[in-house]
């Protein structure tokens, strides 16, 4: 392998957009799985008060996950790699959420 290939390429725009768009979808997907399968999940009978706070919690945790993805997206070697990984994982998690929505 040529030396240059191992190095991180700048690809500022493509990486940034991967972090923003695919990163956002991935965060929603992760939180979605948690919302369905995690404790006090959507299938469990919980009180209105618990739901009020659980939903707020779900909303809040999107941000730290998204910001973390966005911050570390520049570690991908290329923009294409960033898109493939984040886009792939986002698709995977969202498909899982879609299944959960349909099944449960």
């Amino acid at each position, binding site marked *: 392998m040529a030396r240059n290939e191992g*190095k*991180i390429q*700048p690809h500022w725009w493509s990486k940034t957009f991967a972090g923003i768009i695919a990163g*956002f979808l991935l965060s*929603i997907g992760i*939180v*979605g799985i948690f*919302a*369905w399968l995690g404790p*006090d999940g*959507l299938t469990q009978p919980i*009180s*209105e*008060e*618990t*739901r*009020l*706070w*659980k*939903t*707020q*919690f*779900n*909303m*809040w945790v*999107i*941000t*730290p996950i998204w*910001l*973390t993805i*966005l*911050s*570390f997206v*520049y*570690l991908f070697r290329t923009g294409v790699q960033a898109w493939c990984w984040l886009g792939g994982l986002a698709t995977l998690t969202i498909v899982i*959420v879609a299944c959960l*929505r349909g099944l449960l």
Partner: protein
Amino acid sequence: MKISADILRTYQSVHTWTGITAGLLLFIGFFAGALTMFGSAIDDWATPPDYQLMQVPQGQHDALLRKAFTEHPDTLKNITISFEEGSSPIYWYGRGSARGFSLDDQMWHATLDTQGQLVSELRHVNELSMLIDYLHRSAGIIGEIGHDQAGVYVLGIAAFLYFIALVSGVIFLLPSLVKSFFALRKEKGASRFWLDSHNLVGIASLPFHIIIAITVVVFSFHDLFYDGLSQVYGNKPLFGGDEHHQEVRYDINALPNLSEIQKRVEQYAPGYEIKSINFRGLSGKHPSASVAIVSDDSLMRGPHNDFLFMHPFTLEIDTSSVTNGQGEQGVWGTVVTTFFGLHFGSYGGELGRWLYFIMGLGGAFLFYSGNLIWLEKRRKKQQSAQSKSSKFMANLTVGVCLGSAIGIAGAFALSKWLTLGTWNINVAYMWIYYSLFFAALTGAFTLGAARFSIIGLYVFSALCLIVPLTSLWGLALPNAGIWVPNSLADFGIEAGAIGFALAGMLACKRVKHRVYHGEENSIWYCQKLTSKVSSAHLA
């Protein structure tokens, strides 16, 4: 710690670009945000002593409330009872509401006179703290999008850049962190000193900054996130439930006494004191009471208090931001309320407020010094002519930072004088802030950053000094309509103004030295304006 060179290089670029784009917006947000820590003291200081009507003795609030219901039926829709010393016992909006941002809100204040009759007065809501809070949340960016100010979204985007700047800053600092953390290398020159202090402040208050960045993103974009969540939830409700609430219209005479509400609150949240109760929709099908409760010993969710929501007639508690096992908020409530509390700094009482004040100013310093470091890196050391972009950035940095500080100082300096006129004081605050801000920006671009920084610091200090001078004036001429400080909070504001004036003078002294006697090949250098120089220019 060993990190590969290209990661360091990458994140150095990321840090530079995110920092330079978001820095100035965040400066205003943090400078004003630090001041919001003392919002109620500021309002107390800025309103004439007779602005609030007499508080009634404990136990008379009920009688006052019932009188208000019959004499002003409007109050059934929305009324607040306050138990705070120095506040009118009841008040309700004559125009506007607690939600949204408006400059001409009017509030009815009411109390009982010595004969037990209800007296009420309609007053403009004078809130100097509202101007500060507006700048804190929007950086003064004008315009509205949807139900919020455009600036809120702009600061939300700045918060993204801010978080990335924090992470990238830490990454490329890690290798040298251990050996140079507490080193403030003064002897190695000004640029080294700025860099060291930038790093020190950034690392020392990192957790605070991470919390602020995350919470600001949520405050700005929660609508988007709820939309995303509702997709995930499918046909499950985000809020509410399947059980239907009984819709019952209650007779106002069935409203329990306030002491019963107090008893219920005490039972739910022992150790908390009731600050105020807001009743809404008492004559409608969904009456509600939100009770503001305070405790200095615990983390509070709101900027100034915790909340407890209850049914005013049945005294059934819907939920509360106090998560002590009485309700069913679960661990979720604890986490969410902690996020709020950590942003607002509403824990630890006075000490907590001071700590947040200092960290807020520290944040402002972080962004200002970041820009200075950027400028220093681009300095051409071998020639006196500096690049256009450097000059532009220097002018912008000094203009915006000093401009926002001067604008706020101006509003404080003129606040008491403005109450002598009949105009809407909140509009006047805006005019003062924006004219001073844009005057400063213009000054910075016409005179250049170096010269303007001296003038600007003089102006800033002078405006700060007007605050205590105004009070002295009021003391000397008691009939002039200027009131003198009469509480600890008031004296705190006066002392704060003197403190800012001294800091401004000290900074001015150092800036002068740099500008007139520093290295000549820099944007920060300029000659003294003496008659000799100007005549030489003319010749």
